């Protein structure tokens, strides 16, 4: 994609707002539409756009495979870990009331933690899948399209 100057410039401008929007969707999910599932996908889309335009190698050097693979597991651990913390504090598994002296505040903390876990796993899985598909040597040449 070295010869597509417009695409490269537009991508450079777009990537940062996309990532910012992903964060907004992640942490504003309690108030408006959004949440971990959408935020993970949007965050991954920002990186995938970068990878498509600037090449997979450049993206991989910034974000190596082993980091992504750890993120995939980390999200599930954050989610399940929140439940285990609740149990340690004397509540039921994934019952967030005990996270704070005020049960409603505890629910807020629990939802934020759980949504973060969802977002991290979805982001990691989408990136891992993209790496897996884009990393294979293609059978079609660019001109065949």
């Amino acid at each position: 994609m070295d010869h597509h100057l417009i695409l490269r410039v537009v991508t450079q401008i777009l990537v940062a707002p996309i990532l910012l929007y992903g964060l907004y969707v992640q942490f504003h999910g309690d108030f408006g539409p959004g949440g971990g599932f959408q935020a993970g996908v949007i965050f991954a889309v920002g990186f995938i756009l970068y990878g498509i335009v600037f090449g997979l190698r450049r993206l991989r050097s910034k974000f190596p495979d082993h980091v992504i693979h750890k993120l995939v597991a980390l999200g599930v651990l954050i989610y399940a870990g929140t439940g285990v913390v609740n149990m340690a504090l004397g509540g039921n598994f994934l019952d967030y009331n005990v996270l704070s002296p005020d049960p409603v505040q505890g629910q807020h903390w629990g939802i934020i933690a759980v949504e973060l876990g969802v977002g991290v796993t979805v982001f990691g899985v989408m990136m891992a899948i993209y790496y897996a598909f884009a990393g294979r040597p293609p059978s079609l040449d660019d001109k065949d399209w």
Partner: protein
Amino acid sequence: MEFNFDLPFILGHLNYWLFVILMLTGLYIVVARGNLLKKIVGLNIFQVAVFMLYISMGKVAGGTAPILTGTAGEAYSNPLPHVLILTAIVVGIATTSLGLALIVRINETYGTIEEDEILEMDQQKGQSELDAINKAAAATDAQGAASKK
């Protein structure tokens, strides 16, 4: 069962019938088309039609999206189908990508992603293996007969 097919009944059920039509288009692509990638797209269409059926059941006439507005007496659509389908969409893309990964592997092994050709190759391979087994069995039979002599 008795149904009176008046206008409210038809208008109230029209969307279900439209979903069924959409679902059938997806089903037709899955069963009638030989290309594996197209089958996956067909499955996606089928899936989206099922999602729509679920979401439409949660809709309340005159209701609004289930985000609390603070106004008393506001009618909200049912949030439960939304939750179920939201997670189902993300699980759907994850399983779709698993299917696509299998297609990539099939293409590497068979050199094609057309169902007919793959089946033909499998049959030929099975036939040649069968021939080899038969030949080996015949050879051992002949050997056995020779040793008896």
